Structures are given as C-alpha cells and as structure tokens.
C-alpha cells in the first residue's frame, strides 16, 4: 500500500518534470526561430538591405543654440508683426480668435513678460512696450521632465523639440512650462489656417505644439524665420562658440531673461 503511494508520487513527479522541460524547450526554440526571422542577415540575403542614415552637411550645427532679442530696435508695430507673420506662415499656425489660440511667437506687454520686475514707477517707454515672446529652449526644461511619453525632448544642440507622433495631449508640459510657451490643439486646426503650406505638416487635434527654433530651416542651413525677418533685431547663434555673434552681443550689452529665479536657464535673452 505504502509502496504504491510512493511509486505513484514518483511517477507524477517525473512526468511533470518532463512536461515542463519539453514545453520550456519548445518555448526556447520558438524564440530562437523568431530571432532568425527578424535577423538583418536574412533580409540582406533576400536583397532586402536596410539603407543607412546620415545628417545633412548643409545643416547648421551648435552645442547650444540661443536667441537674443534687441527690444531697442523694435520701434513700430510692424517690426513685431513681421517676425510673427514669418513664423506663422511657414509653420501653418492657425489663427483662432479665442482662448484656444495657438502661438509660437507672440507679443506681450512688458509687465506680463517680466512679472517680477513690476514697478509702479517704470520707465514710461517700457510701460506700454510689447515684448516678443517665444519658447525659451531651457537648459533644464520642465516640460521635458514631466512628459510621460517622451514626446518632448531636448536635442544635443539644446533645442527642446516636439515629436507630435508621440504626443498624447495630456498637457502636463503646459502645466510645467512657466512661460506659457505651449499651445494645445483643442480642435482640428486646419479650418483656421488661411493658407496651408504643403511643404510643412499641420498639427492635429489633441497635440501640444510650440516654437522649435525652426529646426527644419537649420537643417537646410538657414537661420530661424523670425531671425531672418527681424533684419538684425534678433540675433541667433551658438553660445558655446566664443566668437559667435550672440556671444559678442551678450558680452557687450546688459541682457535679461524671463523668470531666471526658477532655474530653468532660459536661452532667450532680451536687451532692453
């Protein structure tokens, strides 16, 4: 009786072990099969070779892109409008006349642009003077820290970039950005775009967008559109290059940045 029980248990143990072993082996072999299925060599032997990728030698390169805006040279409304229109036109930015507006570069009065410098006895000229605002391309961007999908990220050249394909529209980045530089597409923007430039994509409902220093123009060897349209009032360059235009401007002029106390190290400088 006792012997029967022991024999039965041993048999059960061995058969369970064999079963587990064989299924494990089967699993392993199917994984190995998958491995060969997606092997690059197998593709190459069928004449299906993947191509290679390269960066454009024409593209402008830098370690730290930055912009300096010389507000002294912005005299008339047209000076601002020229820069804003240049950006709006090439990036297919919709004109939505309510609180669902989309803005990459825009005007704001001095007090709101620099709230910590509010002063009852502010210089008369500054009081009503608009300031040109855009994404600050922060050294330590809070929007990148909070993005749950990696849709917004910082490139090696310092530009904080949006990957609209990955944006899920959670708007954490908008809450994180202390400068209000980000806009959300509450609706399909296309009906609000006067003239769609077919060379540049529009955005879709449910993604966040912002200024990206015209990376598509940098790739072609051109400066950002606002810099070009400003005719010298906006200076663009590489902060890591001591001989760059922007470094010369910064070392010869007193400049301020927006909300420097937050420690985001913005890369848009203002000469007032």
């Amino acid at each position, binding site marked *: 009786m006792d012997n029967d029980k022991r024999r039965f248990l041993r048999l059960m143990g061995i058969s369970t072990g064999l079963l587990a072993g064989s299924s494990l082996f089967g699993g392993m072999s199917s994984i190995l099969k998958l491995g060969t299925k997606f092997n690059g060599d197998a593709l190459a032997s069928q*004449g*299906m070779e993947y191509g290679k*990728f390269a*960066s454009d030698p024409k593209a402008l390169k830098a370690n730290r892109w930055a912009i300096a805006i010389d507000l002294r040279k912005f005299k008339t409304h047209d000076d601002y409008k020229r820069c804003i229109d240049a950006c709006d036109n090439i990036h297919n930015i919709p004109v939505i006349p309510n609180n669902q507006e989309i803005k990459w570069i825009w005007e704001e009065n001095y007090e709101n642009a620099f709230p910590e410098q509010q002063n009852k006895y502010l210089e008369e000229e500054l009081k009503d003077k608009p300031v040109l605002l855009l994404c600050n391309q922060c050294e330590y961007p809070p929007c990148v820290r909070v993005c749950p999908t990696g849709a917004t990220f910082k490139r090696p050249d310092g530009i904080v970039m949006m990957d609209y394909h990955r944006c899920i529209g959670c708007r954490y980045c908008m809450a994180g950005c202390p400068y209000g530089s980000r806009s959300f597409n509450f609706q399909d923007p296309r009906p609000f775009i006067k003239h769609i430039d*077919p*060379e*540049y994509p529009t955005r*879709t409902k449910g993604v966040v967008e912002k200024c990206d220093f015209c990376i598509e123009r940098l790739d072609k060897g051109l400066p950002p559109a606002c810099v070009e349209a400003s005719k010298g009032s906006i200076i663009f360059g590489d902060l890591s290059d001591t001989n760059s235009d922007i470094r010369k401007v910064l070392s010869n002029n007193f400049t301020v940045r927006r909300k420097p106390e937050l420690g985001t190290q913005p890369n848009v400088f203002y000469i007032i």
Partner: protein
Amino acid sequence: MYDSGKIISGLFIFVGIVTLPFWYNAGKAFVKPDPSLDTPVIRQMKEKHCIESKQYMIDKHMQLLNDWRNEVVRENRTIYVNSSGQYFTMSLEDTCFHCHSNEKQFCNQCHSYVNIEPYCWECHVKPKEEIANGQR
C-alpha cells in the same frame, strides 16, 4: 431528448449567426488592388524608380517610414542612403510626394483592400494632386 426541437433549431440559428460573414460575402467578386503608375506626374519623370526596389517598398514601406520618422524627428539625421548609395532627403512632402502625388492610386487602393486607415493625413498635407481636386 427533452426539448429537442428547441435545441436543434437553436443550434441552427447559432451556426447561422457565427457563419454570417461567410454568407454575407458569398458570391461577391473580390477586386484585387491594381495601382496604376500611369499618372500625369509620373509620365513626366525621366527615371521611374523608387528609392528602393519595388518589392522592398511593397513589403517594407511601413518599417521604412517608421525608421525615417524616428531618424528625422529624434536623431536629427535627414539623409537616407539607399542600397545603391544614392542620397535622399527623408521627407514625405519633399521626397515621396514628388512622385507619389496621387493618393488614390498609391495609398488608398491597397489600404482600403486590407482595411487599414493610415492617419498620416491628420497632420501631413496630402499630395498636391489631391489639393487640386479640392480635397484636403
């Protein structure tokens, strides 16, 4: 068997519902997608060849486009070197659409056949021929 009438007729109804898709499509002729390369834009081209072989593009265009997207957006590499060493700018608008200007022929024919709706057009502007026809 109790209630055999109900059970058997119920079984017939069940089998009928499960096989409904087959009945629904029975007798319908399936038209295979047959994209025509004979568009006005292509007729004007000297070299009628895509960036890779035709078979590769049919089999792998989705992986290729996915790689292009990641390379351009995230790695800042904008040039594609194909298997024969030619250079191309990786861009739907600036490269693909120069030849593939007819969405109906190049995209919809096969995608409709396999019931796929790519959502590229929510952001990327459709090829010029479509805009000319009043579609966006």
